[in-house]
């Protein structure tokens, strides 16, 4: 242990007590606050401070909103102040804090003077720490949810495409055969109607399968999937998507392809929903080991700052999340009546173009 001269020690301790960032309360055996440092004062309202100075017992309870146990987030069960023979090296406690509301603190309480039962309660602001952890947790959860969603969509889409649609197709062939087995015009007409209905149903199912997750994306890659998707936008909404691409049949990692496809899908859908336009431009370009996606419309635009979302407000968030997953950078430029320009730049591995897609 480093020796400090006996004369200096009280001085250093006093300075530590006064200037420490930790909020320090010194309590006597009945829970009266007999001293507190400057940091501790700052978190109290004037009224609480006055009452504590006045020496009310258990004064800390005015600010305290309970501490965390394994059973409850905030509880007063076996209170750390009332239970005077209890030393807790580290626990989480919630305190009413000036200007911040009820926020969590990391706390420790220990007896420093056994004879007089003097105890020290030290608090450290945990809110930043907890926020960081929550964000991290949320991100991990989001990623898992997105992956699970994508997998499930793929499964159902495959099932529809490979089994339901195939069965219906053979049914359609059967019906066509029946058509040539009779000359009764009434029967032929009825069969023709059924054939038409069945064809529409088959188209609906194929459409559903593609909407869930396009098999083209797994089998043929981004460019084909985009072309098919934009065609369906044309016939569903009458909106023309001008598509330019230089990637040809190049393939990328499954995760990149999925993210780029979904981000583009979301961005174009946003344009359809909110921009009030008849055409959208999409560019997909590979340059300098980067894959760049541009989605441009000259619609009504929106305010990026303090925009009150017209939809769920999750779309843009989801796009950013997906971009981060593939180490991409998503930038959104928009202003009222100036249109919207969304750009995604994502790194691709050297020679990534030759990577076989192991998606299927």
């Amino acid at each position, binding site marked *: 242990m480093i020796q400090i001269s006996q004369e200096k020690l009280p001085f250093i301790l006093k300075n530590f007590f006064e200037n420490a960032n930790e909020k320090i309360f010194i309590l006597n055996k009945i829970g009266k606050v007999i001293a507190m440092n400057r940091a501790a004062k700052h978190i109290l309202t004037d009224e609480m401070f006055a009452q504590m100075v006045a020496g009310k017992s258990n004064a800390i309870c005015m600010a305290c909103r309970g501490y965390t146990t394994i059973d409850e987030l905030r509880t007063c069960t076996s209170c750390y102040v009332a239970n005077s023979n209890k030393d807790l090296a580290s626990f989480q406690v919630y305190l009413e804090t000036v200007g911040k509301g009820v926020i969590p603190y990391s706390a420790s309480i220990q007896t420093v003077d056994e004879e007089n039962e003097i105890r020290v309660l030290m608090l450290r602001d945990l809110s930043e720490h907890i926020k960081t952890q929550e964000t991290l947790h949320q991100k991990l959860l989001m990623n898992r949810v997105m992956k699970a969603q994508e997998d499930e969509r793929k499964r159902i889409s495959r099932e529809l495409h490979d089994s339901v649609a195939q069965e219906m197709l053979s049914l359609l062939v059967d019906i066509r055969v029946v058509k040539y087995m009779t000359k009764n015009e009434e029967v032929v007409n009825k069969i023709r*109607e059924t054939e*038409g209905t069945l*064809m*529409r149903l088959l188209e*609906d199912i194929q*459409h559903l399968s593609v909407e869930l997750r396009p098999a083209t994306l797994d089998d043929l890659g981004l460019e084909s999937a985009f072309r098919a998707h934009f065609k369906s936008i*044309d*016939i*569903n*909404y*009458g*909106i*023309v998507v001008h598509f330019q691409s230089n990637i040809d049949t190049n393939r990328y990692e499954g995760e990149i392809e999925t993210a780029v496809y979904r981000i583009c899908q979301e961005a174009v*859908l946003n344009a*359809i*929903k909110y921009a*009030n336009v*008849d055409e959208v431009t999409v560019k997909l370009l590979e340059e300098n080991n980067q894959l760049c996606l541009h989605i441009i419309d000259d619609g009504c635009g929106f305010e990026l700052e303090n925009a009150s979302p*017209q*939809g*769920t407000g999750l779309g843009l968030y989801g796009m950013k999340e997906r971009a981060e997953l593939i180490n991409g950078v998503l930038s959104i430029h928009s202003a009222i009546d100036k249109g919207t320009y969304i750009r995604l730049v994502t790194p691709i591995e050297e020679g990534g173009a030759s990577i076989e897609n192991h998606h299927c």
Partner: protein
Amino acid sequence: MKDRDIQERIEKIKDKCHFDFIKIAFLQNASNTYEIKSVYGSGNNSKRYLRIILKTGKGVAGQALKTGRPVFIVNVDEEIKRKNFHHYPIIMAEGLKSIGAIPLYEESRVIGVVVAGFRSYNKMTDELIDQFNHRVTKEFSSLFKEMVKK
């Protein structure tokens, strides 16, 4: 039936009922794909409605096709949530606020739909719905067979 005839007929309905927009969509049998598409319209802001291939169940026209009954939305903002607007392509494309769709039958089968609407709210009143229905029956009831064969 000549193309001009259909165009004239829907324009007549539009004038009589004072609609801002009208279109007629029916089964395009020529290519054997069984698509239901709009070919004639009037009062349109853009040509988007001509590119749309109708899907049963989707949008006002789709609902009329699916159920075989007329579908009306008197006030678009009150009856459709903003986030679901994109499920109603024609409302979006033409900025309609009050809209109706009447299915067209050939024998017992729905083969098309007439969609009309206003760019202002609450115009599709009950009386107008009756009038619209009546006009559509008058102009088109006898002619579907011919149209489908085309």
